[in-house]
């Protein structure tokens, strides 16, 4: 069987005919395999969903327990139609996985989803999975993206908090994954007092704690008087009147996009922190070199840059041009 008969893009998402399933579909489908819990990959309303136990639990928190007709936790290799599938840690967020698809006849395909190879205290580390075809994101698929050591970014945050002790520091971070990672980075950097979190983060933070990730003392940032200098909130909160309770805040944002000044300026960010849950350029190119697949498929992001690199390296590559996935949420 040819590779594109095993997996190919459709308007609903990547479809696997021999297994009769979709991976991270953007529309309701009878059977979905889901890499991780971010809203653009994990949607509600599918007939059956297979994902890691943590991803299923995260989906239940976000959408309610009836988010799919039936669910199955991916644990070890499983038969789906005429294929065997297995889930492997992706290092992106809690519960995130790469999905390896092994058809009975034909090449082995690994769909990496969103992945990251920086050490991340809230996610199991990325695990290289040998394959014939490697399906990768290219969110930061340009050589300008070399994410710095997050500890250095925390040093800048702490320096600003010391320089402006009277100003609350409001840091925008995506509610699932980035926010908890930021809290853990703050703890590792020595911030052990209360950190305030926006209401939208509460349940997801509670879940991380239940999963054994000690986020330390958290207080709600919904009160009139917020008793913490460091406040973490989802990016959408910054457009709401919620911000008005803070007096002269320093607005920060934790994202890989903060590498580029114009991006930071467009958002009106005073303290850009380059912290990303995605592979940067050195990581994505190193991963492809290590895995040495016979072909690379690129799902979304800055595919032109990665396509060009594959061309220079003599690795066959093609863009899938999947729509409906956000680059790292802005």
């Amino acid at each position, binding site marked *: 069987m040819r590779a594109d008969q095993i997996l190919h893009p459709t308007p609903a998402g990547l479809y696997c005919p021999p297994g009769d399933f979709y991976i991270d579909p953007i529309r309701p489908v009878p059977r979905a395999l889901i890499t991780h819990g971010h809203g653009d990959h994990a949607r509600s309303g599918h007939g059956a969903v297979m994902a890691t136990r943590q991803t299923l639990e995260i989906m239940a928190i976000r959408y309610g327990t009836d988010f799919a007709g039936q669910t199955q936790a991916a644990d070890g290799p499983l038969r789906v139609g005429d294929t065997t599938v297995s889930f492997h840690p992706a290092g992106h967020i809690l519960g995130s996985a790469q999905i390896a698809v092994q058809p009975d006849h034909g090449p082995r395909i690994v769909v990496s989803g969103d992945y990251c190879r920086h050490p991340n205290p809230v996610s199991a580390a990325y695990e290289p999975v040998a394959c014939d075809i490697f399906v990768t994101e290219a969110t930061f698929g340009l050589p300008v993206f070399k994410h710095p050591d997050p500890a250095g970014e925390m040093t800048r945050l702490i320096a600003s908090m010391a320089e402006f002790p009277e100003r609350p520091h409001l840091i925008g971070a995506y509610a699932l994954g980035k926010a908890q990672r930021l809290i853990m980075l703050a703890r590792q950097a020595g911030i052990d007092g209360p950190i305030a979190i926006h209401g939208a983060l509460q349940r997801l933070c509670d879940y991380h704690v239940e999963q054994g990730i000690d986020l330390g003392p958290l207080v709600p940032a919904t009160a009139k008087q917020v008793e913490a200098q460091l406040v973490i909130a989802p990016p959408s909160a910054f457009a709401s009147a*919620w*911000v008005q309770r803070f007096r*002269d805040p320093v607005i920060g944002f934790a994202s890989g996009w903060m590498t*580029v000044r114009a991006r930071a300026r467009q958002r009106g960010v*005073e303290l850009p922190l380059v912290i990303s849950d995605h592979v940067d350029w050195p990581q994505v190119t190193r991963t492809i070199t290590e895995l040495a697949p016979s072909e690379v498929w690129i799902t979304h992001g800055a595919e032109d840059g990665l396509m060009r690199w594959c061309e220079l390296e003599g690795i066959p590559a093609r863009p899938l041009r999947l729509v409906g996935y956000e680059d790292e949420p802005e």
Partner: protein
Amino acid sequence: MRAFSTLLERLAFTPARNAKLRILRHYLEQTPDPDRGFALAALTGGLKLRTVTPGLLRGLMVERVDEQLFALSYDFVGDLAETIALLWDTDRDEDVPLHQAVALLSDTGKAGLPTAIAGMLDRLGASQRLAFLKLATGNMRIGLSARMARIALAEMGDPDVAQIEEIWHGLTPPYQPLFDWIAGGPRPEQAAKAPFRPVMLSTPVDLDQLQAFRPEDYVAEWKWDGIRVQAINDGGVRRLYSRTGEDIGTSFPDLIEALNFDGTVDGELLVRRGDDVAVFGDLQKRLGRKQVGRGMLDSHPASLRVYDLMIWQGRDLRDLPLTQRRAVLDGADFGSDRIDVSPLLPFATWDDLAALRADPPAAVIEGVMIKRRDSVYVGGRPRGPWFKWKRDPHVVDAVLLYAQRGHGKRSGFYSDFTFGLWDADQLVPVGKAYFGFTDEELRELDRFVRNNTIERFGPVRSVAPKLVLEVAFEGLNASGRHKAGVAMRFPRISRIRWDKPVAEADHLSTLKAMIA
């Protein structure tokens, strides 16, 4: 240079003036000499380094990175120095002292420059690379004036801003004597000729407040709408300073050439054709130019209208009362028809002066100045001896069209408002205002914006055209950059007209008719 790169980054992203000042002061306090002095010079445009061209940098890059990947990256980042800082591949991140980078950029010959720059980039991490490349291209863009740098210096020790301004132009990087003085050492000798002297400023007044004073104790003159300057010829060294001590002489070579006197004088820079003083917009065309073409010199000739004498023919007059300085001024020969004296206005009562103010003989007059006859000339803004009584602002009723979120104390509030006027049956944006309202009014405006949003573009919202704002402004310039063809000066929201129907807002033609 690590601290310097952090400084540049913090200044670039910090919008609030006071926060910038604190960041700069901390840097200057914590950084050793001579690096802090070179940083200060870099920020205030006082470093004269070899300028590195974009072509040279591009050349370095294409030797190291695939051209197509470089093009894609540049396209994404949008800034050449930043693209190169990010793309440059090295594992090293040495903290190279700033003075080493400055020495490299001032001492290296043209032929050796590419190799030297590449060698330096190889030693630096990304944020230091960006700082170095900004230094090399002479393009700091951090929104910090030399005036603000001097305020930060004044916050570090005893000398105040006026004292620092007075010696500033005699100093050269890395300013060791200046920092020594701030730390308690001796005041640096003023060695340079034609130094800037702190300018005397006025406080606003109105007719009610004037009733407390006796008219016979004061003189009055027109307040000309140009740029307040200090013009100097000190033993042949000629200088033209703005009132904050920026040397603006290079933009006005015609006036520099006309400073055929011996002294330091206080006056208004104007564009004047014969007896006609041109509107501010004409003067604005001359500002900020490194070179002025012949045509511009002919069509927009610069002139000086003198208000006061500070130093005249070797004598410092600043401790004399105004009437005595004025007597010298009235008898002075400036040796050029580009220079004349601002006439005094005849008045016996404040009502006389009010009548003059209400009907000035030229559009370029923006009110009257009132000065105590016995006032000595002191730098700064003392309360009392000098008043400005500005003409009433122009107002238009405009419609709120867009709003943008503010920073700092206004975080979370829509506080920057774009407003428009009718042009036939369309509303055309004509300007932007972000003050004039109270905190309570800001909350009301914020609520209105949130409840009437049509579209969002990042931090900007377009708003249903439902609210009329009375906008006050000081004047109008014709402008090619604004869609409406006019630019307001100093626009602010003077009233929120919750009561007024949008259809009754003003028309663009009304505004255009105000251009003198």
